[in-house]
């Protein structure tokens, strides 16, 4: 059967000519420094494929209208066969994808792989990361629950503060003055049609670039030695086996998270009731926290320069060394950026809440600063305190 099939194709196509490049790509040797961290790129791709597949399954029942969105997601979670699993894998997959893409970018940064000649691969990679964030933002609204509705209201409001074009962008995103049916429609189209295709083509370019230029070695720029056939590690089967190990573990984590810590659907969106202390998803928390410390315009500027720095990084860091220990300035900037993301994210997470640390109760204000709650005083809620602090001093 196999032989006959081969024969059938051989009569129609020049298989030998096709076989060459495929074999070349399959057995292309990867440099010796290839590590477990080098599987993160493939894992990002795996998660993207998983998102597409589960997304298609969800689309069978999902209805992108104000009246039906919430009910259809509820239907998926309660009535449709294994629908709960697809929705949970899609939701958790989105979160894991952000983590994996970020870690992949971090690995590239640490190993200095973004340097010449791979600057464009990095730039497309940053676009992929940003698109993943937009994926998260647009997908978050689709279940049309309270958190989604208000997070989107706040998120689009931030866009409205951009000078000159802000109001136009806000209306463009919302499809009207408020978040409503029009917003749901356009977020849906962006999430299921536009973004997947844009991402697909950028992934394609990113992969083609990786295959053409090969995996970066740790040699300084200009003195990279090409890995000759027979040297290094072959892509197939050695590296693919490694990817297989990570793939199975990631799949296990994805399923476990989906079962043990499922995402709640919450309450249906109600434009008339604003829930207390609305917070964006964890991946937007650092940005959300930064905006609080600055006046609206400055905040947006500060948040906006982050991605610009990322995009322009290969142009800013032109040193030839790739080894992290030989790039003290770059690594310090990287570590500081990472720490600030972690700290700001944590502060954003804890802000506007009451928490117990070491047996004492703390009231954490809007800026993420903890205040010890005295035992006998009836303290006002942190939100009001923050409003008081915010009020300009009387001259």
């Amino acid at each position, binding site marked *: 059967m196999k032989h006959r099939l081969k024969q059938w194709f051989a009569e129609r196509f020049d298989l030998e000519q096709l076989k060459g490049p495929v074999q070349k790509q399959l057995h292309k040797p990867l440099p010796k420094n290839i590590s477990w961290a080098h599987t993160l790129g493939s894992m990002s791709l795996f998660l993207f494929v998983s998102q597409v597949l589960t997304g298609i399954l969800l689309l069978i029942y999902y209805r992108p209208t104000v009246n039906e969105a919430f009910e259809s997601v509820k239907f998926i979670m309660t009535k449709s066969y294994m629908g709960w699993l697809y929705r949970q894998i899609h939701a958790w997959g989105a979160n894991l994808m952000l983590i994996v893409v970020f870690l992949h970018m971090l690995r590239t940064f640490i190993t200095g792989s973004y340097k010449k000649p791979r600057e464009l691969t990095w730039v497309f990679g940053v676009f992929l990361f940003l698109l993943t964030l937009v994926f998260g933002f647009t997908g978050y609204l689709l279940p049309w629950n309270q958190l989604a509705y208000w997070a989107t209201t706040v998120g689009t409001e931030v866009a409205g503060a951009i000078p000159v074009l802000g109001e136009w962008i806000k209306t463009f995103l919302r499809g009207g003055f408020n978040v409503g049916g029009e917003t749901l429609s356009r977020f849906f189209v962006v999430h299921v049609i536009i973004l997947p295709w844009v991402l697909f083509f950028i992934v394609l370019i990113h992969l083609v670039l990786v295959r053409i230029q090969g995996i970066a070695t740790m040699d300084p720029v200009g003195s990279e030695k090409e890995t000759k056939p*027979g040297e290094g590690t072959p892509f197939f089967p*050695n590296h693919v*086996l490694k990817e297989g*190990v990570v793939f199975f*573990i990631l*799949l*296990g984590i994805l399923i476990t998270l989906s079962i043990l810590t*499922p995402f709640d659907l919450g309450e249906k969106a109600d434009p008339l009731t604003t829930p207390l202390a609305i917070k964006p998803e964890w991946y937007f928390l650092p940005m959300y926290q930064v905006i609080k410390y600055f006046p609206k315009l400055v905040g947006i500027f500060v948040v906006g320069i982050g991605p610009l720095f990322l995009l322009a990084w290969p142009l800013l860091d032109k040193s030839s060394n790739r080894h992290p220990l030989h790039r003290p300035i770059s690594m310090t900037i990287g570590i500081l950026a990472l720490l600030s993301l972690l700290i700001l994210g944590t502060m954003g997470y804890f802000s506007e809440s009451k928490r117990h640390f070491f047996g004492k109760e703390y009231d954490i204000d809007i800026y993420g600063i903890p205040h010890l709650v005295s035992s006998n005083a009836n303290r006002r809620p942190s939100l009001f305190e923050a409003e008081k602090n915010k009020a300009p001093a009387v001259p």
Partner: protein
Amino acid sequence: MTIRRVGKGCGEKELFLTKAVLIIFWFTATFFSASTPIVLAQSSEASSCVTCHSDIWEEVKESIHGRQNISCHNCHGGDPTAKDKESAKGPNTGYIGIPDKKKIAETCGACHANVEVMNFYGVPTDQLARYKTSTHGKKLFLEANTKVAVCSDCHGYHDVLAITDPNSSVYPLNVPKTCNHCHGSEALMKPYGLPTDIFETYKKSVHGIALFEKKDISAATCVSCHGSHGAVPPGVKEISSACGKCHVNEKKYFLESMHAKPMAAGRFSECISCHGNHGVERASNDLYRTTCIKCHEKGSSEEKAGETIWQVFHQSGEKLKAAESSVKQASIEGIFVEEETGSLEEAKTNVIVMAPLQHSLSVERITELAAKFSEVADKITTQIHQKREALKWRKTALIPIWVFILAMAAALWVKYKRLKTERKKNQPNKTNREGEK
């Protein structure tokens, strides 16, 4: 002027409109002038009574009568136009001073029993007639007992307010206290052998709590059962109509019960036999265990029927509680319980329907309804159990999933390690071979 202009050649339409306006004006003017009460003719401000009795006028001014310009002489007689005290209270002025109780009823009735006067205000005019049929009225008019309550004892005299005014002594919230002025007085009640603790008993009753604590003015007060102007203690037969005014379904089912016959014969005082009267408490199932045996012997079939009904209600109550807590707990755990919450409402409706139905005392009908409820309650519990089991199953499924994943990962890793070792072994050979070449 208008007519002249019309005559000078204005359109027919304008003429018609002018006529219509004039006719409407004429009708409105005559209607109000004819129906305006006669008492309005005398302005209270012009009354000379106020010159000396200005303190009393202060009270009257804010009353419902004062606001309608009903002045002193309308009740007390006298000449309000006279300039001095003597001529104002002179022999031909009809001055009566402070009216006695009988006179009070008649004086109030002079207006309040007069359809022509009261029609303007839309107030009924049967109060005096009703009063004369009441125990109070009979004692006053037939026995000349002046200790009984008359209009002014409940409504006040100079400061009478509308019954809808929360400050009025006969506003629903104030009625029990107003009645208690006399019915709480031992000195006044002793000659009639009436109890004086009714107010205290009522305060603790389900009606009293609703009225005083929840400020529910629709709750039954003294007048709801005893009537107001025609106040009489309801007899055995009237109790059903008294309680049944609000408890319509209970009354309906009671009349279908075996107790309806003795009640009609005056041998059984329906509602109060089981529930009591002034101190009526929130009805509990235990009434079946405490009140049936008041008339029926222990061990009798009636007592057993009561016990059966108790059992049915007890089991239904327990089942409802279990279903409610099951739904609540499941929703806390994050299980979708929308369907079950809907079913719970259905179950509760059955229990609500059971409450009045029990007055039929038909074991068959009650059991039938309880079975319907039980079916819904069981469905709720089963569904939630199944959902919880499904969640447990998901968690259990993680074990084989991880076994498979770890096996696959291990197999791939072993293969990878083997390939790596082989490669290391082959590497020097390959270099040697290349050297040989």
